[in-house]
């Protein structure tokens, strides 16, 4: 019999940690399970659970969303994108459309899709038009885009690729002077696709405990127990607490499709900056499907920096686990899921939205400001 949630909680309590420990997760799905199950209040006080860079929508560069909007508004194309990208805000002067949703309302042909297969169907049904697939996402989502291309996409289907790899953001944090966490829970479905081995560097190079977890409370608690035991024993390694689904080497076909169609390049993360080897670009053999090569660019250096985050929005620090969502001054005050200001409140995987919909309603920005002032 597998231990129950209650037994895992009991085991965590019996560990008697001699100091507070911060465990980071880098997956919106993990954060959702943790928040919905109320694990933060159930576990001992000296274990902190920190949401890190786990939301692909939140870190998609502002200029890419802007580019997609401008292509849809100015070119004779159909733009398709995963539904959760449609409400992501960009910074533009008042009266100009601020999101793909508003560009659609202004007359652009923008269609939400739920799979690459739908993009193929729309392109096949509209052979006289260019269909641009704005494809943002982490490995789990980018691999299906790669598979779509590897299988052979229609000639009129172009990809505006904004794919990102998860582990390099964690590597960047670990190489910084203040990583802000003592152990890592590695993402379950990213590891299903890419293989758990990608996360070995956390223990091997940085000496931090690491465990891959699934999405139920018991596998998350098992991963927490694992990393805390590793800390106590001072023997960090990569544990796999989701072995039913996460197999060594990941999914070989998914990795082959990625390797065949895309190469890894340095890439910008919204509000964070460039992270080495953290993005995907189409290989030359697939240039015929590269929207960036066949359509004009609307990139504008003047608006680039100013456009990173909406004024007052602290998403960049939320994404890096530097502050909790409710430490942003706007959290729950000006910014709620009904009237979101930053991408972290727009996206279903954004920590701000997950916290709000899980019932965290207190804004503690004043307390945290004074805490920072005291040191």
């Amino acid at each position: 019999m597998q231990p129950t949630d209650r037994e895992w909680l009991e085991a965590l309590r019996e560990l008697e940690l001699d100091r507070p420990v911060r465990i980071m997760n880098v997956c919106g799905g993990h954060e959702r399970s943790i928040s919905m199950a109320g694990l933060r209040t159930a576990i001992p006080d000296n274990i902190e659970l920190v949401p890190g860079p786990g939301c692909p929508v939140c870190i998609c560069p502002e200029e890419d969303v802007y580019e997609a909007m401008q292509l849809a508004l100015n070119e004779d194309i159909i733009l398709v994108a995963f539904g959760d990208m449609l409400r992501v805000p960009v910074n533009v002067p008042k009266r100009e459309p601020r999101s793909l949703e508003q560009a659609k309302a202004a007359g652009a042909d923008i269609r939400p899709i739920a799979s690459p297969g739908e993009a193929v169907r729309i392109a096949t049904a509209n052979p006289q038009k260019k269909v641009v697939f704005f494809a943002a996402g982490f490995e789990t989502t980018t691999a299906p885009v790669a598979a779509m291309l590897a299988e052979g996409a229609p000639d009129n289907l172009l990809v505006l690729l904004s794919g990102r790899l998860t582990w390099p953001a964690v590597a960047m944090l670990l190489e910084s002077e203040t990583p802000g966490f003592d152990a890592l829970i590695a993402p379950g479905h990213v590891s299903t696709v890419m293989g758990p081995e990608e996360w070995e560097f956390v223990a091997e190079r940085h000496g931090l405990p690491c465990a891959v977890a699934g999405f139920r409370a018991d596998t998350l608690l098992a991963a927490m127990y694992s990393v805390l035991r590793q800390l106590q024993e001072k023997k960090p390694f990569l544990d796999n607490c989701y072995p039913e689904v996460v197999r060594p080497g990941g999914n070989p076909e998914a990795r082959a499709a990625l390797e065949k169609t895309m190469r890894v390049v340095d890439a910008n993360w919204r509000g964070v900056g460039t992270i080495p080897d953290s993005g995907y670009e189409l290989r030359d053999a697939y240039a015929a499907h590269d929207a960036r090569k066949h359509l004009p660019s609307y990139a504008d250096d003047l608006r680039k920096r100013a456009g990173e985050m909406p004024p007052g929005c602290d998403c960049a620090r939320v994404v890096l686990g530097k502050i909790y969502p409710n430490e942003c001054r706007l959290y729950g005050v000006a910014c709620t899921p009904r009237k979101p200001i930053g991408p972290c409140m727009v996206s279903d995987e954004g920590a701000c939205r997950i916290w709000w919909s899980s019932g965290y309603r207190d804004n503690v920005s004043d307390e945290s400001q004074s805490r920072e002032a005291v040191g």
Partner: protein
Amino acid sequence: MCLAVPMQVRTVDGFNCVCEARGIEREVSLFMLQNENIEIGDHVLVHVGYAIQKVSEEQAADTWQLFDEVLAAEDSIHDVR
């Protein structure tokens, strides 16, 4: 965007199959599981229309239990959206 859902295979035609979960049917690509033997009745984890892993019936049921809890919790908070 990274959360895959378990579905049951209903029909298979090359890389294309139709999968079902909770009464909803979807076209799913088996491209990434082409070296696995996938048969009608099997359960697979589906993400953006692609099956990324074969799972056991138990594993599928467990995951759906989690989704039901999450959805119920979200429904109970009326002003989410």
